[in-house]
């Protein structure tokens, strides 16, 4: 059976194809103007790489910012549940997931089955999200990916006082102009990022087995500062790209739903009784 999970975020779109219990293929693209476009293109690319077509898909679940807009998905689930599910599948010891997306930062706690038991998400402010790092990279004149490398060997990381993503960009601009070393600024940025996320994390409470997902997970400097600030080690997700965990979770839910649908067909009566227990 072929299950597809499609995650359309605010910065990038991901698709994961699983067959039975293994990841067959995944792909990542930057978002297009409309979510359905992004979903279509990224899924097509993944299918093509796997030498498959849309007809081969048995069940598709969409997630992420544009999840309700994906025509070819049978149903949608919030990225919060999906990240939990995907990360716990990638490493069964995972109980807490820190997911840092384009404009959201989330901390998710899951049970031993990968079902989400609690979460927090940043509220009125985009500080501590991918947007924050993006803006900073722009000001520093480096690529987002290079922000991490830039900060290595920092002697005295600067303190960023502004919370506002926009205002702190100008704070950094002036630091640069006051001749502050880029290395220390970059380190300060990563530090600030980590501190903002740790504030969120403290709200739900960290449980052993912490995994980090989302694009920012690839920024090892932020990850390193997070380890320092939170005082925990992150568990590995094996060979699963941290950026596709949401889509992976969606694919796993796709499988679950396809099977549930099958059971229902098997027992047509008593549809409604268990609705409360179906995670849809």
């Amino acid at each position, binding site marked *: 059976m072929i299950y597809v999970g499609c995650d359309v975020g605010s910065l990038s779109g991901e698709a994961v194809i699983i067959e039975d219990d293994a990841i067959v293929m995944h792909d990542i693209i930057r978002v297009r103007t409309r979510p359905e476009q992004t979903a279509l293109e990224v899924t097509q690319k993944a299918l093509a790489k796997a030498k498959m077509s849309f007809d081969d898909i048995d069940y598709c679940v969409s997630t992420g910012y544009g999840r309700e807009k994906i025509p070819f998905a049978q149903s949608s689930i919030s990225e919060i549940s999906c990240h939990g599910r995907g990360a716990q599948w990638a490493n069964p010891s995972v109980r807490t997931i820190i997911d840092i997306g384009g404009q959201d930062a989330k901390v998710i706690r899951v049970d031993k089955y990968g079902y989400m038991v609690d979460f927090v998400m940043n509220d009125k402010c985009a500080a501590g999200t991918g947007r924050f790092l993006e803006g900073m990279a722009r000001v520093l*004149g480096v690529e987002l990916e290079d922000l991490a490398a830039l900060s290595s060997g920092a002697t005295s990381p600067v303190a960023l006082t502004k919370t506002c993503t926009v205002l702190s960009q100008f704070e950094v601009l002036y630091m*640069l102009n006051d001749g502050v070393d880029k290395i220390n600024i970059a380190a300060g940025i990563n530090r600030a990022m980590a501190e903002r996320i740790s504030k969120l994390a403290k709200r739900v409470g960290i449980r052993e087995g912490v995994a980090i997902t989302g694009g920012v997970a690839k920024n090892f400097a932020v990850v390193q500062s997070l380890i320092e600030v939170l005082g925990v080690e992150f568990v590995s997700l094996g060979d699963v790209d941290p950026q596709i965990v949401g889509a992976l979770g969606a694919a796993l839910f796709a499988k679950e739903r396809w099977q549930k649908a099958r059971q229902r067909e098997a027992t047509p009566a008593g549809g409604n009784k268990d609705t409360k227990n179906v995670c849809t």
Partner: protein
Amino acid sequence: MLILGCDVGAITTKTVIFGDDGIVAYDITANNGNLTKVVEKSVDNVISKAGVSLDGIDVKAGTGMGERYIPFDHITEGIIKCLAVAAHRIHPHTRTIVDMGGLVTTAISINEKGKVLEYRTSDKCASGCGFFLRLAAQALEMKVEDFGKLILPYEESAHMGTQCAVFGESEIVSHINDGVEPEKIAAGINHSLGRSVTTMINRIGGIKDIVATGGVAKNKGVIRAIEETLGMEVITLSSIDEQLLGALGAALCAQQRVQQG
């Protein structure tokens, strides 16, 4: 006498050379990275346009957020006063100035002599400033310049509710997702900007003539939105680029100082 006025703002640096019969030359350079270099570039441009050398300049004055990055000796002027003096010089009937810059919007009330009576700045929030327009333009994959052309009545424009520049962006994205035409969204942004500016004008009890300056003043959509909510005409100066008033004001203030000795 040749006076150089330099206004180092949040996203652009403006330089003018002011002579006995008005502005000789001006330059507007976008800020990126090293502001000192930006200032040097802008000054080089303007003196070459004016066909003079830096030594040929009698007085140099600076103002704006990044004034301290001007590498050469100069007189420092406060931006509020600069705007007031310049607006008064160019349009003597000015009683209210609304300067819509890259990061800060300022509403200034002045008397018939051009003296500042009171002013309010758009505090510590990037919503309702030029930078927000930039983010919006990015999200809409449009040119900031084209925003001004998109004028629709408030009711027909997309509603922008959020206070935050960053989430403004995400609100734009969700409008796009809901299939709202980019034009309506852009018009909606012009309105939300215009309305927040109107509020600032009202805070100092906007008396006419009301003159709009700063980069955002080039956006006719915003100007229309202000006029619509304020119910008054908002004047945009034709004789000078809206962005230059700070720099010009710096030159004029410096001139005064020199003349007073």
